[in-house]
């Protein structure tokens, strides 16, 4: 079950500079756990005590997972997860 994960510039410090990595899992939570096992620390940049971090956007293929099932969103072989930090400010 190979999931393609697209990593934004600011998180490539965890992946040795790689902008695309593969991960395994059947839910988004599982994929993030798998990513964190291989790239320690990346999980903490995606998840906090309340779940998915407010200003990090995660997409399953082209849909924001907040409109799907959040961390429980099911993922399948050959799906693509894209991580994009929000562009925001005040």
């Amino acid at each position, binding site marked *: 079950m190979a999931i393609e994960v697209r990593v*934004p*510039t*600011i998180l490539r410090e965890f992946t040795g500079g790689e902008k695309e990595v593969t991960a395994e899992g059947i839910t988004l939570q599982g994929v993030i756990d798998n990513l964190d096992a291989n790239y320690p620390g990346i999980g903490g940049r995606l998840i906090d005590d309340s779940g998915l971090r407010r*200003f990090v*956007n995660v997409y399953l293929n082209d849909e924001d997972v907040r409109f799907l099932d959040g961390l429980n969103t099911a993922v399948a072989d050959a799906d693509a997860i894209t991580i994009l930090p*929000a*562009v925001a*400010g*005040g």
Partner: protein
Amino acid sequence: MLRISQELVDQIVRHARADHPDEACGVIAGPVGSDLPERFIPMVNAARSPTFYEFDSGDLFRLYRDMNDRDEEPVVIYHSHTATQAFPSRTDISLAQEPGAHYVLVSTRETGADDGPYEFRSFRIVNGEVTEEPIEIADLQNFGS
């Protein structure tokens, strides 16, 4: 240093005035690694607020997909302040997540939507540190030819 054409400066200011009193926001994309702002991309402020801006998540996805398809990156990320100075706020600093971008701030506090004086400044924001940088207005069409 930010090198940018006068036309792009004018487009940013026009956008800021058009959205006043809400904050305006957008990106200028350029070829990866070039540090040249080329393609003006005004974005919708999904927050529609005079004190906060955020790109809609779907718009953000399409923006980055398009830039990726064109081998571009966000060279400039701009937004406006409508009642305060053109300097990154604490929120701006804590949410800046593109370390390679030039963060441009415009302030429309003096004249709002009308012609007249405005503030236009550029900054690098890396690891929570803000550094103002000079702006060189240059016609970049002929740069490198």
